[in-house]
């Protein structure tokens, strides 16, 4: 008898339906799998055999052929185990009367028959729902992630036995209730701007960067709190919407880094080490392509500590995703596009020894060394970093009398306001933030009066600014004006924007 069971394979962030066909026939007992299964899928043979036996079910001693259709795409991973087991049971007439036609089975089997959670469940569920499937059996370990898919019957199961009993109607499983999405459900964690002492320049830069979606570079001697400042970025970013959260969760689910909550409720903060390869940054893999750090940072922050230590080629690879908000990775197995709209936050020392510009310690680097160090970051990359600030290397108490530091929540309120202004402004432009403005939008929304234009002109002459700094200064001035609630860009906004250009002044 032939049985057909629906299962799903992952192709990038999309689920692709796979039919598991099983034929149990008379003949010399054998057990074959066809239809481009990879090693992990082929090994499911042994897992399924043991799982059936240890669940008190019968493994048919016949000629068994299992086919994965469509036969032309490669099947990878262990998520087909449950579907293989069910189709074997169906084909060997152990599930008489059970209706399995339109149920999607997902899960990996343990030898004792338990169901193990799989990676990429949410993207599969979303795709399958789009294909018209509404009934799913999933591992109980994936329950939290599955809860957020509304409009479908999802049955979580702990073991093969539970699934069989459910299908035969002996002990039905209750479908999952759809969960309500709550942003920042896990609390904001330990990072908060109120714990950051001093650093008025950097704090302000953080606020402007988040408000306008600008990228940020912090420069300062080691141990001055650059990392701590960066960790505060997600706490002042606008809350995730459900759609954003689903998109981020899809990526994290495919990469297998989804946390306990089952859905991402906080904006991601990714800190790849500077030894990271280009592939780990951008995504890649042998047959199935996995998303890289920039995609995992989608919707959140990619923090590159000690920017000049990263490999040049790795940094250059970021340029195109920074522009497009997505990355397309091509491999022999196919071409995959992952979203990668992230905020880049980088930190660096001012020179190799770290003391350049410090008032207390002397810098032991030669000018040539400093030039070499800074040259590691290419102009085109620096081009995409609108805000460049210096982090203070002093005890703040020495400067200013004790003052209550603003908390992240206060800053976030201002950021939300500025974002609302931008949403209204760009309603028909297809962009969301000031940083995304092109030349056309700048000409339309960032009109400088004669005085402002004069300021820019003299700033260029006096401060040796590079020509490409102009549009970045204007964009930042626009964001500062938005934070100020001002309709037009005023001279003081331009002046302030000019003060956040640290590295344009060099050369």
């Amino acid at each position, binding site marked *: 008898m032939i049985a057909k069971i629906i299962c799903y394979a992952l192709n990038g962030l999309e689920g692709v339906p796979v039919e598991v066909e099983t034929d149990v026939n008379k003949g010399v007992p054998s057990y074959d799998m066809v239809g481009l299964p990879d090693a992990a899928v082929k090994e499911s043979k042994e897992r399924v055999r043991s799982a059936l036996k240890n669940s008190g079910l019968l493994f048919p001693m016949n000629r068994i052929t299992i086919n994965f259709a469509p036969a032309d795409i490669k099947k990878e991973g262990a998520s087909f185990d449950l579907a293989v087991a069910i189709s074997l049971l169906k084909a060997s007439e152990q599930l008489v009367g059970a209706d399995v036609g339109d149920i999607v089975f997902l899960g990996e089997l343990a030898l004792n028959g338990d169901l193990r959670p799989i990676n990429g469940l949410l993207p599969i569920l979303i795709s399958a729902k789009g294909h018209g499937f509404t009934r799913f059996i999933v591992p109980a370990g994936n329950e939290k992630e599955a809860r957020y898919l509304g409009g479908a019957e999802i049955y979580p199961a702990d073991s093969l036995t539970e699934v069989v009993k459910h299908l035969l109607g002996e002990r039905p499983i209750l479908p999952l209730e759809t969960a309500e999405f709550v942003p920042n459900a896990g609390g904001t964690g330990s990072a908060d701007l109120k714990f950051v002492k001093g650093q008025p320049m950097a704090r302000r830069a953080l606020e402007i960067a988040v408000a306008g979606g600008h990228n940020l570079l912090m420069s300062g001697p080691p141990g001055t709190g650059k990392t701590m400042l960066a960790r505060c970025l997600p706490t002042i970013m606008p809350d995730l919407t459900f759609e954003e959260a689903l998109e981020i969760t899809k990526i994290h689910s495919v990469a297998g880094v989804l946390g306990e909550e089952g859905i991402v409720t906080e904006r991601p903060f990714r800190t790849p080490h500077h030894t990271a390869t280009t592939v780990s940054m951008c995504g890649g893999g042998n047959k199935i392509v996995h998303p890289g750090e920039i995609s995992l940072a989608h919707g959140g922050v990619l923090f590159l500590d000690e920017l000049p230590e990263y490999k040049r080629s790795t940094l250059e690879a970021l340029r195109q995703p920074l522009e497009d908000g997505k990355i397309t990775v091509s491999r022999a197995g196919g071409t995959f596009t992952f979203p990668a709209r992230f905020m880049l936050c980088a930190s660096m020392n001012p020179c190799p020894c770290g003391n350049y*510009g410090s008032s207390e310690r*002397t810098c032991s680097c030669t000018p040539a060394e400093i030039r070499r160090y800074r040259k590691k970051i290419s102009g085109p990359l620096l081009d995409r970093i609108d805000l460049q600030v210096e982090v203070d290397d002093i005890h703040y108490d020495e*400067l200013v009398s004790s003052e209550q530091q603003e908390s992240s929540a206060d800053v976030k309120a201002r950021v939300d306001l500025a974002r609302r202004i931008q949403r209204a402004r760009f309603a028909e432009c297809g962009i969301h933030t000031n940083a995304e403005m092109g030349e056309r939008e700048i000409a339309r929304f960032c009109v400088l009066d004669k005085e402002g234009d004069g300021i820019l002109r003299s700033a260029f002459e006096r401060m040796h600014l590079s020509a490409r700094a102009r549009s970045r200064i204007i964009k930042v001035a626009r964001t500062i004006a938005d934070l100020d609630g001002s309709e037009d860009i005023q001279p003081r906004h331009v002046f*302030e924007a*000019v003060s956040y250009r640290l590295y344009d002044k060099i050369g």
Partner: protein
Amino acid sequence: MITQEERAYLWLCACSRLEYREKVALLRAAPLAELFPRLAELSRSVLGREIAAEGCERAADGFVRSLEEKGYFALTLLSDDYPEQLKHIPSPPLVLYGTGNRALLRERMFCIVGSRIIPAWAEKTGRRIAEQLSRRFVIVTGLAEGGDLAAVEGALPGGNLISVLPCGLDECYPAAHASVKEKIKRGGLLLSELLPGEQTRKYSFHARNRILAGLCEGVLVLSAGKKSGALITAYSALDCGRDVFALPHNAGASSGEGCNELIKKGAALVTEAQDILDWYGMEAPASAEIALTAEEQRILELLRAEGEIHFAALAERAGIKPFEASAVLSALEIKGLAVKSGGNKYSAV
């Protein structure tokens, strides 16, 4: 037009196998007209093979032609425009190769130098002093980062700038300043004692510094650590009987120890171009008034009162928000009245 005598002189000086004192001895020993036969005699012992006097002459012609093709000129001690003051220093350069505006050599010269790593305020101040002095003097300096570059940037727009290289005119040290060198060639004057293709060596800087000191009437040191090369220029200026000036630095600041030491030993303390002009009894060139808003004026006065100060501390003194202060300071910076140094600190210049 280069005379036959000068040709022989140049050819002798271009001979790298002879030392300075040997060249001087040769130039003194024989009348220049007899130099070629004398060189031909020498060729056996120096070069190890004999070259006839005519051969020497041909080679000398070729050398002079190659200089002219590159647009270089060569000054010998016999040239009319070899700077008179330079002839009187110990071991003056026998030849100076140059390219650019030769007329600058007849002007009064003043030297501005500083260490390569220089505080931002000193750089800004140096640039301004160079700009103002360059209307009365030709500014002489090197081509390195920091102090030299400040002098170049100040004086080059007016064209009154001589840069003396520690390498041949074909070379550029530091290599990163090739574009600066090109600008000086067009707008000012480049000089070097070395043959056009010669590379920089350890001792070239010391030798170059004696030319800087020898050319000028006085030297201003913008910044110098305890063992800075700028001090070598200052001390060789003293040896030549030139005036030495220095910018005062904060006590304890390592980048200014050398300057403060010079002042302690009697160098004139300089905070603005007028100090130097007064020394030489000159009038200050008129400068344009810069328009300031009331807020900018207030912050500038506070900044002047405080010296170097963190912008947040300044904001507190002024009773405004830090980011408002950074906008005003940025305005002052653009107007050339304030300068940002490391660690978000500002000072007035």
